[in-house]
């Protein structure tokens, strides 16, 4: 049994010679009840509307907050438990897209259809991810398995989306590929007060201009199985060309950004009787070309190209020398370079480079028939670039399973994030680097419980609840240091504490319901009197997410979703707060038989909420006057109103076959 625990689920072979009728493959991925870490496994399945994207699915996990700069296809990034966006590390099949917190991953660049699951690790993360980041891990796992699928969607703002998936198996070789094309004008309506909060006469509804996007992305993978070994090659390219619409008060008509990204991965995996391991070699190349010749974004004309290259190697190994001891280790290293070319500048920026090595050594210690599992980990980071940083940090997880249906968890650890090359040396002209930055350091701890009802019950449920605490020191924050330029500084200490809960119910094969609630408090402990003891910006104290759907087999499915975000400040000074907001969504899907295509109509922001009511003079709490403001996730970037999407989807029917 212990072998099955640590071995990759894909390697879990059926006993030879038996005939197994495969109705539906067992879900792959981590078992939330069998790990001390707080993990949510999100699967794009029949209960997921076609209008969902990676960001909205991630946001449905407890403890997460997504910051969007618009609607479908617009920039979106995730914060977990109040951590900064850079403190969350996003992986694609275990390969880091922002290694060691280098940059912020735009979730809009990752097509949801490419993934069979998304793992959201809050706080402690498995050793296989290496030196875990302070803010947690989002791991996107690409689709596997036989069959094919295609879908096409059409929506307002000339939005067209299409994707296709296919897989082939031939002997010991198999391959699969996914591609998605998204095109939208993004010219939705939004409320604009013309930056005159006291003057209502010039308020009007505008159309978001220069918000078009064309994005093509996907992956292709080939694998060969050789006994206990498997070799795979994966390539995940992306092309994205977009207009940059600017903020509400500073709309841009011509500024554009073109992004080319390619992730190439070569992996060797193997396992023996009591061990499993893998070695992954990867290259992540990214080219961003910004053209803003009219200086619409910040007043300065720019024509810049940023070229970043990262080459990394990650080796993981786990073993089971005894039933109670399972050590594991991950050693990784990567080298990254950043070249900034500004054709309008007179000086050439030198190419910046750094090398980062990380190691995580841990073990699962199992006692009393697996009723108690202790998972100590030591993780280290060594960085060599403009500065040299070496750090060794401990973390510990504990899992108690007094019964099969109850898991009790506790985690704690210390973490580090070194400043990245952009923070050190700047980027895009208006971002000035700060080579004097010191790493962010922090502690996180959580306790929780998970209850799972028997799968045989007509009403299947699982419930998670927990409390967390996260503190960081020397948090790196971008501050404006002159009229239109920004520089990062070590801002001081912060903490976030809260509770999070999730309830997943599947009743009578008719009703699916997922509910999450997160309540959190945050404090900024910086010495700056303007911010001291304030709440952290964009850290809502209460968020609630609910998605429920009812279905008759899969012939007809009706779904409804609710997203509530409590009032939260969008500035560190806690002067400006967004109002509480509730957004509703719905979808209806019909599919007469499994062999037929399904047709779905989904709606986002069903109530067409474009505005919120906020204090007109937040400097004076006694002033009862109110003002109308555009509803946003990020100040100055409005969200779209009601949006419909019509989607046709065909998927090869689930396999029903005799396997020898």
């Amino acid at each position, binding site marked *: 049994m212990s072998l099955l625990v640590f071995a990759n689920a894909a390697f879990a072979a059926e006993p030879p010679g038996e005939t197994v009728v495969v109705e539906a493959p067992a879900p792959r991925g981590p078992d939330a009840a069998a790990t001390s870490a707080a993990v949510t496994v999100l699967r794009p399945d029949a209960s997921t509307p076609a209008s969902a994207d990676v960001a909205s699915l991630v946001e449905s996990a407890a403890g997460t907050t997504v910051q969007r700069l618009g609607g479908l296809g617009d920039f979106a990034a995730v914060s977990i438990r109040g951590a900064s966006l850079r403190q969350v590390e996003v992986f694609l099949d275990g390969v880091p897209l922002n290694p060691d917190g280098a940059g912020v991953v735009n979730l809009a660049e990752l097509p949801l259809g490419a993934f069979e699951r998304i793992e959201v690790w809050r706080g402690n993360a498995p050793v296989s991810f290496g030196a875990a980041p302070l803010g947690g891990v989002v791991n996107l796992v690409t689709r596997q398995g036989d069959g094919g699928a295609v879908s096409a969607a059409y929506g307002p703002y000339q939005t067209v989306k299409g994707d296709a998936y296919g897989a082939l198996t031939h002997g010991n070789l198999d391959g699969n590929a996914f591609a998605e094309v998204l095109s939208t004008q993004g010219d939705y309506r939004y409320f604009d007060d*013309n*930056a*005159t*909060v*006291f*003057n209502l006469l*010039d308020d009007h509804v505008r159309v978001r201009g220069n918000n078009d996007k064309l994005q093509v992305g996907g992956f292709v993978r080939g694998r060969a199985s050789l006994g206990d070994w498997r070799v795979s090659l994966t390539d995940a390219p992306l092309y994205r060309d977009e207009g940059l619409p600017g*903020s509400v*008060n*500073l*709309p841009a008509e011509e500024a554009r950004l073109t992004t080319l990204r390619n992730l190439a991965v070569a992996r060797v995996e193997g396992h023996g009787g009591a061990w499993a391991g893998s070695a992954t070699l990867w290259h992540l190349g990214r080219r961003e070309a910004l053209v803003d*010749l009219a*200086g*619409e974004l*910040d*007043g*300065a*004309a720019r024509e810049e190209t940023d070229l970043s290259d990262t080459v990394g190697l990650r080796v993981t190994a786990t073993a089971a020398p005894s039933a109670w001891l399972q050590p594991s280790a991950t050693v990784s290293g990567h080298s990254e370079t950043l070249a900034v070319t500004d054709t*309008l*500048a*007179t000086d050439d920026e030198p190419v910046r480079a750094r090398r980062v090595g990380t190691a995580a050594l841990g073990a699962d210690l199992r006692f009393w028939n697996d009723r108690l599992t202790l998972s100590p980990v030591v993780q280290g980071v060594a960085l060599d670039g403009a500065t040299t940083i070496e750090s060794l940090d401990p973390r510990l997880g504990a899992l108690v399973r007094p019964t099969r249906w109850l898991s009790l968890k506790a985690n704690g650890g210390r973490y580090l994030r070194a400043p990245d090359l952009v923070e050190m040396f700047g980027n895009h002209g208006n971002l000035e680097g700060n080579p004097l930055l010191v790493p962010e350091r922090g502690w996180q701890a959580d306790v929780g419980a998970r209850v799972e009802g028997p799968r045989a019950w007509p009403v299947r449920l699982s419930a998670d609840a927990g409390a967390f605490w996260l503190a960081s020191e020397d948090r790196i*924050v*971008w*501050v*404006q*240091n*002159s*009229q*239109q330029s920004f520089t990062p*500084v070590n801002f001081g200490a912060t903490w976030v504490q809260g509770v999070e809960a999730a309830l997943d119910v599947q009743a009578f094969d008719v009703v699916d319901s997922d509910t999450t609630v997160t309540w959190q408090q945050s404090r900024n402990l910086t*010495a*700056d*009197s*303007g*911010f001291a003891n304030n709440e952290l*910006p964009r850290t809502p104290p209460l968020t609630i997410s609910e998605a429920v759907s009812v279905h008759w087999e899969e012939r007809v499915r009706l779904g409804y979703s609710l997203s509530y975000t409590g009032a939260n400040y*969008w*500035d*560190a*000074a806690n*002067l*400006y707060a967004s109002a509480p907001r509730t957004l509703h969504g719905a979808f209806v899907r019909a599919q007469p038989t499994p062999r037929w295509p399904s047709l779905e109509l989904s709606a986002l922001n069903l109530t067409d909420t474009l505005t919120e009511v906020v204090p*007109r*003079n*937040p*400097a*004076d709490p006694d*002033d009862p*006057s109110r003002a109308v403001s555009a509803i946003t996730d990020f*100040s100055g970037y409005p969200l779209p109103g009601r949006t419909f999407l019509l989607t046709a989807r065909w998927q090869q029917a689930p396999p029903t076959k005799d396997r020898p």
Partner: protein
Amino acid sequence: MILLALACAPVIPEDSALDTGGGDSDSAVATAVVTTTSADYASALLATVQLSTMIIIDRITTAPTDSQVVSEDGLVYVLGRFGVDAVRVYEPGEWVEPIQEFSTGDASNPQDVKECGGSVYVSLYGSTEVKRYDPETWLLRGVVDLSSLADSDGIPEVANMIERDGVLYVALQQLDQDNGWVANGGLVASIDCATGALLQSFVAAPDPTLHDVPGSAKLMVRTGLYFANDGGVGWFDPTTGTEAPLLTEAALGEEITDLAMVDATHGIVVTHAENHDFTTWCWNPDDNALVELFTTPSSFQGLKAVGDDVWIVARAGWADYLSPTGVIVVDAIACEPGAERWLTDFEFPPFSVDFY
């Protein structure tokens, strides 16, 4: 009264005027109005300082984060510059809401306000225009088209304005925004206040700003680009449009970032060194004599003269994020090194100041 002040009441008592000494234009002022902007430039407030007591009344109302406050003809204008592009007009002391608020147009970047000839003129750095408003209705009365004075980027970079004898003198910085903000020249344009007609333009050194000199028919002009010792300060004669350079950055070895004159023979000049320290100097244009007052790592956002004093707006330094912030009050007549006074008890670091 002190209790009232401490209670942060939005209505400001105005019963004690400062004896402003030598300056004639500020003799009746009693209150400083200050916009303050948080260190991360995300939030801003309006505060006032009673000049007789130096009591700060903070958190009166919100303000744009990149602001310019201008007291003009009995009104207080709070300009939201690039990215806000709007003007709030307040009756001094009545801060609950402005008597008027209007947009000057996306990316227009309002810089300065002057009332003259029965119109309110607003200079726009991101436009080719100076807009002219009716102070009764606040409707647009017209625009002064300066497109003929634009440099290669298509706009002339209209900066600050000074009024003399019914003529508005406007600094045009002529920076090429499409080419790294290099200088394409520099002009001073004159506008007839009564009609809004462009009268003429005078060639100035690159990147000029104009500065009032109380008691003098002449103006001071400061020129030179940021981070280059290529400019200086000198007299500008509005009747002839001629410059008479006095103090040069090359001779001083530091960049002159701003100045304020309290009369024709006393002023404060601030300079910026390569290490990003700022130094304050007393300056007498008559003999071009400089007296060094103090040096600080804080960065100076602006200067404003009131009576014998010059108020210097100090924000966190470019090289030292933790350097002190506040308003530094310097007596330009006494000119005693070490006698500067810091006003630091603002909720946010000050950004812009004027007096009414």
